[in-house]
């Protein structure tokens, strides 16, 4: 049976207690909102895309340690990166969470960094939705920004 330490790695608790890129951005930044209807977790993603680059990102909302740390790590991972790279990371992260969206197998050659710590979530299927919430919300924000 997987233990708590498989789920709550130290780096996860660190992101939970000191979330990165926390806050909001005014328009023209785009905003998207994600809800986990099961537990009430809420995530807001504020996003500025400039010249195909994720120029700025802020995270709002409230939720459990898994959803909040995942959002924090995500924001750190995509900030300053090209949009295409951000989309590829979303695909790769969801694949790591055993969510099969079809399409190509993600390229797993680059190191995942802090995000690696969330791998243990897969052993707790109920919590996968918590971990993925912010990533779905980011995907939606990228779609809005592309309009």
């Amino acid at each position, binding site marked *: *049976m997987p*233990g*708590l330490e498989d*789920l*709550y790695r130290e780096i996860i*608790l660190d992101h939970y207690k000191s979330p990165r890129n926390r806050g909001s951005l005014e328009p023209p930044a785009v905003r998207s909102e994600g809800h986990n209807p*099961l*537990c*009430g*977790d*809420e995530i807001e993603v504020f996003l500025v895309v400039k010249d195909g680059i994720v120029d700025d990102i802020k995270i709002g909302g*409230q*939720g*459990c*340690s*898994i959803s909040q740390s995942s959002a924090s790590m995500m924001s750190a991972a995509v900030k300053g990166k090209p949009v295409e790279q951000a989309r590829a990371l979303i695909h790769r992260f969801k694949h790591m969470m055993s969510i099969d969206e079809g399409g190509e197998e993600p390229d797993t050659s680059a190191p995942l960094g802090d995000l690696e710590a969330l791998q243990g979530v897969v052993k*707790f299927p109920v*919590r996968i939705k*918590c971990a993925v919430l912010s990533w779905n919300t980011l995907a939606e924000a990228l779609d809005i920004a592309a309009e």
Partner: protein
Amino acid sequence: MSFDVQKVRADFPVLAELINGKPLVYLDSANTSQKPNAVINAMTHFMQHGYAPTNRSAYKLAADATDKFEGARAKVAAFINAPKVHEVIYTKNATEALNLIVRSWGSANLSAGDAVVLTHMEHHANIVPWQMLAAERGFTIRWVPLTSDGLLDLSNLSTLLDGAKAFSFTAMSNVLGTINPIKELCAAAHKAGAIAIVDACQAVPHMPTDVQAWGADFVTFSSHKMVGPSGIGILWGRESLLDAMPPFLGGGNMISDVKVEGFTCAELPAKFEAGTQPIIEAIGLGAAVDYLTAIGMDNVRAHEHDMTVLALNSLNDRFGSDITIHGSTDAALRGATISFAYRDVHPHDISQVLDQNNVCVRAGHHCAKPLMRILGSNATVRASFYLYNTPSDVTALCDALSEAGDFFTL
């Protein structure tokens, strides 16, 4: 009859299960209850020896199945003191029963300019159907607010009810545990000329129910919360109201005649029971009613009252200012459903640690988001006790909570 919780526990096979070698501490009965052998065996026996269609075939097996199916209805009617057995309608669950009231009675009686009164402690099942119809019809919904200790604030009730056509409220909050003054609320509704609808999903399993003493017009509840199977619920309504209402779902069983020009409805209760019914589930519900009746609902209520006092005292003694328990501190005013916040640890994270100790609680918004907004949080931990819970379950909850506190303050 004296109440012996250990004897009760022996009736529920799942409570003897070990998960990872440790006993199960089931504190999620407000969500759904566990099932006794009496219910399991009644359903199994019926499937093995007596299963057949009801109310439509002439052979002996079908006639016997119909007797059992209708017999279960009579048991439910007696359990809630319904004046007439055919006022008891089988539904899928309490949610469907509430939707039936709104779609059938509501469609026939509500239009723009009308008002319906709900409370801030309702489950989504007693909010969303009204909002759906209000969006079509343009009637308004008024809300009875709450006091700071989680009771209904009735100071303005007569103003809120003035001119309203229906007052629909929960008998007991699924989040706060608050037991509402059902009789008084029904009387207030009637005084204002409104009908009284009681969502008794959290009450019927836990205390004696007397729809006549309550003075209600409609009462809804689910079998799965009262040691019966899932898949069946009950709408009880006054005959005169049910007779005047249009049907809800159309199909087989609910008609008297169908011609190419149109149809005529069957008599109660068939009028509201379209299609093949949850036959096996009705047999199970009947067995659940027998089981609870034999134990005695006064005994169930008394046991849960004791569990509430113990749980409130234990949580407060052990965690003091680290814990915020929502709702009333007076066990006489509440059931054994206890929602709380613990330090600033998120309810999901708490339930995860509790789960490592097989302590099953619900973490989330409990399908009562308007109430959660009033409590100023988007989730709570909810531990809910039933007739099979013991003082050692309270200890297990406290121990696991203490572990969660240690873990998240590393």
